[in-house]
């Protein structure tokens, strides 16, 4: 059939100047602009940290004590050790606590009122400002021991890490297929054996991912450290005395008037950012590999 015999179709042509089309085009441009605008600060922060940090990042900054005001040289060796120490204490406190709680929430009391309530409280806890958690740790540890200490800082960071660990571990355990459990229970395993030998190993990579992310975030936190671990110009000698940390050092030196200290603040930032970026990429890689 030739097309001349067909009835005429209504006009369906594009008209780029009609208000509807015009509005759509403008909004699309606006959206692209939003995305570009959102990425500018990321690029700006990362590039400044990289450029300013790398220029003063030499090997000896990792091994030396901070310079006295106005002097050259020095580093943040003690702060690096202090961060490892406080984050280590925080991990020892929060990881077993969080994983045990997650086992209860995911394995034994899943979908109960109690579990729902605890999940709710956990989510709310993750929204409590870190500075308030610092105040809590100050009241609980600093006031009762009479001194700023790595333990007080570690305790504050542990409270901060706890919700992340509980949540990721609960999700990891819940995503282990039910068949595994049924198979184990069918063989006569107790819940203890099933959880420890079957479910936990299967969920382990995902739990580790969550823990790594929580540790990286904690290492960059400053507010809860300020008046719990406080700071120190010396190497760590005991977990019961004021302890320097990387994030606190960046804060102090950023607001200091001396050029060398500001340089170290940038170098310290680069270390913190590298840590966060590396763990984020690593965890993403682990997730994708699975």
């Amino acid at each position, binding site marked *: 059939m030739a097309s001349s015999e067909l009835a005429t179709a209504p006009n369906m042509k594009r008209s780029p100047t009609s208000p509807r089309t015009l509005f759509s085009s403008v909004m699309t441009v606006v959206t692209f602009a939003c995305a570009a605008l959102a990425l500018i600060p*990321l690029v700006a922060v990362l590039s400044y940290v990289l450029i300013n940090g790398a220029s003063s990042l030499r090997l000896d900054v990792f091994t030396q004590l901070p310079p006295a005001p106005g002097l050259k040289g020095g580093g943040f060796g003690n702060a690096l050790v202090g961060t490892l120490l406080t984050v280590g204490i925080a991990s020892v406190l929060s990881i077993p606590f969080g994983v045990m709680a997650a086992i209860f929430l995911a394995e034994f009391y899943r979908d109960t009122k109690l579990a729902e309530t605890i999940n709710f409280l956990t989510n709310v806890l993750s929204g409590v*400002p870190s500075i308030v958690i610092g105040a809590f740790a100050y009241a609980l540890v600093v006031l009762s021991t009479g001194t700023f200490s790595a333990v007080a800082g570690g305790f504050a960071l542990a*409270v901060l890490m706890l919700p992340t660990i509980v949540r990721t571990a609960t999700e990891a355990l819940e995503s282990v297929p039910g068949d595994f459990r049924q198979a184990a229970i069918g063989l006569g395993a107790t*819940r203890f054996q099933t959880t420890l030998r079957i479910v936990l190993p299967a969920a382990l990579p995902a739990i580790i991912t969550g823990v790594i992310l929580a540790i990286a975030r904690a290492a960059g936190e400053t507010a809860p450290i300020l008046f719990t671990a406080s700071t120190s110009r010396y190497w760590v000698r005991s977990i019961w005395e004021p302890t320097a940390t990387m994030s606190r050092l*960046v804060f102090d030196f950023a607001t200091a008037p001396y050029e060398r200290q500001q340089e170290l603040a940038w170098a310290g*930032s680069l270390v913190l950012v590298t840590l966060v*970026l590396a763990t984020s990429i690593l965890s993403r890689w682990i997730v994708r590999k699975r």
Partner: protein
Amino acid sequence: MATSTSRTAMPTQRSNSSRLLDKGFVWVTGAFAIGVGLVLLAIAYRVGTDSLPAIQRFGLGFLATTRWSVNDEVFGALTQIYGTLVTSFIALLIAVPIGIGVALFLSEDYLPPRIKQPIVFLIELLAAIPSVVYGLWGIFVLIPLLRPFGIWLNANFGWIPIFSTAPAGPGIYAAGIILSIMILPIIAAISRDALVAVPTEIRQAAYGLGATRWETIFQIILPAAFSGIVGGIMLALGRAMGETMAVTMVIGNSNSIDLSILSQGSTVSSLLANQFAEAGGLQVSSLMYAALILFGLTLVVNVLAELIVRRFSLKL
């Protein structure tokens, strides 16, 4: 558990110790789980009791007094509460439209997934950068960059109260802008989840009726995702109100209240960050009182956000 390897010796009954271990394990994990729930209450309790002396001394007047004098032992947190609310408001004003724009950009089919995924990841990274690094960048990059703009605002729009002072460098506006960068990823990520969760069938129905992309977005998709987006905004608001380091580093930490956003100010969290380490006596108690107020504010916002997000996720 079998103590012998011989087949006939397979025990038919679980030993008492095994049963006890099993039961004990459940109990122990239960204790930890309840412990997690109690942490929140413990924070409220401990911060609350430690602020009692200040509550008894100043009562609700604490919220309406701008004076914070260590020497005279007179404490009021109005300046800081005002600063917290204003900086958070500025942050939302900037981050909400851009964040929703980003969410739309990432939920629509503008880009193939292979390019989209890395962008989602990059925006998530924005949330992972430590607060203190934003503060450092704010001091040395953002403030010098903003200053000419602030001077221009004051010169041309100085008759508007919020631009009525000459910018000194650090100030409320710088804190608001830094906060907007920090909460943007939260709004973008949660809004994107809410938008993606809108069923494709509904989207296709709108297209099938001859709606354009943006008619579909404004009239169908955004309304359907509304509660999820609001939940995300509330979470971001909670984050902004509690954010400490970056704000402390760029706000100027002045203890006087001024309507102008170009002036220096302070927030509840910056007050705590600056004074806690060297405080004593009634000052500690007053700081605890301020912390309790911040805790209460963020708690209300976060609980609302949690309820909204939860209701929204149940519905879909």
